[in-house]
């Protein structure tokens, strides 16, 4: 595993995309913090940037990378290497590089401009978000052999999670506002990792003005610590489940 991971990591570094991504995140977060006069406002700007760009870059880069690794996978498979190890090494390599890019690009300015607890929560949830979308990319790319289709699925999933979902929940809320639907809405929001991250951050920040509607309900429903714990476990589940299914499918695939 370590040996394969080494080659994957070297290869990812060589593409330089991850480095460009790090620089882009750093530029965005530094400018957000220095342009806004107080740190809380800056943080909200950074949060919105993170919730849009991190999933997009993670899911796209990982999908394309997995498709481009077809030859690499084929080459290794005729040698004494466990099949699942190749998939796990690719996943670990991509997850680690996206997470490191996030921590260097966003984490450092966060630690400088905000208080430690807020910064840590944001670093952990953003890192989880990176890994979640790498896992989703793995699932999307194992579903079809067609590269264009696979990337299409990835973009659709991103659109759905990052933009459509909150709107959908809001729509449902207004449609059924005469009924007690807080509980179903809370359950619904667990179905999108982006919303979960937003809730997690906003529970911490207490800026209800910028909250998605799901966030507002979530805070009402859970106390701070409860919500925190639950959201983190749900986020972890969002990493494990897609990756597990992709791994199962990969193990059964003909190459």
């Amino acid at each position: 595993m370590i040996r394969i991971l080494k080659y994957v990591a070297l290869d990812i570094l060589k593409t330089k995309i991850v480095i460009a991504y790090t620089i882009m995140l750093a530029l965005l977060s530094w400018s957000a913090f220095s342009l806004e006069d107080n740190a809380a406002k800056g943080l909200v700007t950074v949060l919105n940037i993170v919730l849009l760009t991190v999933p997009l870059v993670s899911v796209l880069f990982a999908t394309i990378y997995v498709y481009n690794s077809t030859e690499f996978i084929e080459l290794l498979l005729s040698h004494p290497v466990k099949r699942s190890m190749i998939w796990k090494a690719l996943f670990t390599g991509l997850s680690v590089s996206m997470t490191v890019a996030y921590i260097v690009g966003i984490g450092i300015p966060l630690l400088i401009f905000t208080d430690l607890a807020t910064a840590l929560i944001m670093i952990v949830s953003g890192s989880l978000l990176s890994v979640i979308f790498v896992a989703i990319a793995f699932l999307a790319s194992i579903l079809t052999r067609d590269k264009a289709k696979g990337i299409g699925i990835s973009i659709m999933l991103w659109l759905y999670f990052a933009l459509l979902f909150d709107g959908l929940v809001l729509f449902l809320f207004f449609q059924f506002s005469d009924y007690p639907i807080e509980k179903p809405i809370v359950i619904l929001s667990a179905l999108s990792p982006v919303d979960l991250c937003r809730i997690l951050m906003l529970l911490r920040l207490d800026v209800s003005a910028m909250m998605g509607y799901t966030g507002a309900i979530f805070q009402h429903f859970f106390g701070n610590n409860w919500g925190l714990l639950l959201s983190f476990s749900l986020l972890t589940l969002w990493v494990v489940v897609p990756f597990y299914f992709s791994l199962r499918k990969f193990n059964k695939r003909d190459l």
Partner: protein
Amino acid sequence: MIEIKHITKRFGKLTALDNLDLKLEKGQCIALIGPNGCGKTTLIKSILGMVLPEKGDIIFNGQNIKNNNEYRKHIGYMPQIGRYPENMTIGQVIDMIKGIRNSNEALDNDLYEQFEIGKMLHKKMRTLSGGTTQKVSAVLTFMFRPQVLILDEPTAGLDPVAAEILKEKIIAAKKAGCLILITSHLLSELEGIVSQVIFIQDGKLMLHKTTMELKRDTGKDTIAQSIVHLLKVQTV
């Protein structure tokens, strides 16, 4: 050494391997012959665990290969069309495979030297011609002194000099007691190398004989003539 027990593999409606049963013994050099799309490559990939058959088992040295990967230590595989990570150089690919195999045994660098790979180490895989890619495949196949060699159209795309070098190497491996499984459409090329012939059609085993038997039964002098004879008899 390798036992293939009633394996069946379907790709959608197409049955690539149909209840195929085979026994491959050590020290043999076996030609795998059959028309295009008859299931040769599928069979090879099944042995390597790249294609997973629906039914049947493959036993390698007494061990079922299902959920096993260690047995591949003993196999050198030369694919029909070698596909390599495009951004890597020849040197990096060879180093990576060395690292992954992590073998303590002395490496076999004969082909490496004879093909003069050392001069091309810095070349990227995507810039290589088909023949040079085949050379890299051949070097990697023989490098770790495997007991079993699986060669899928080994000389396709190689220039005459390189093809001759490779042939010599195959004969040397046969003398050393390796099991060699080789597919080729150039039947004349197999003459003098192979000791057994396996003929597959539509995923079914049509024939598995030693070359002597084959020639005797058909009354022909060469493998090529025998096979052509057989095909003609079949169609009549």
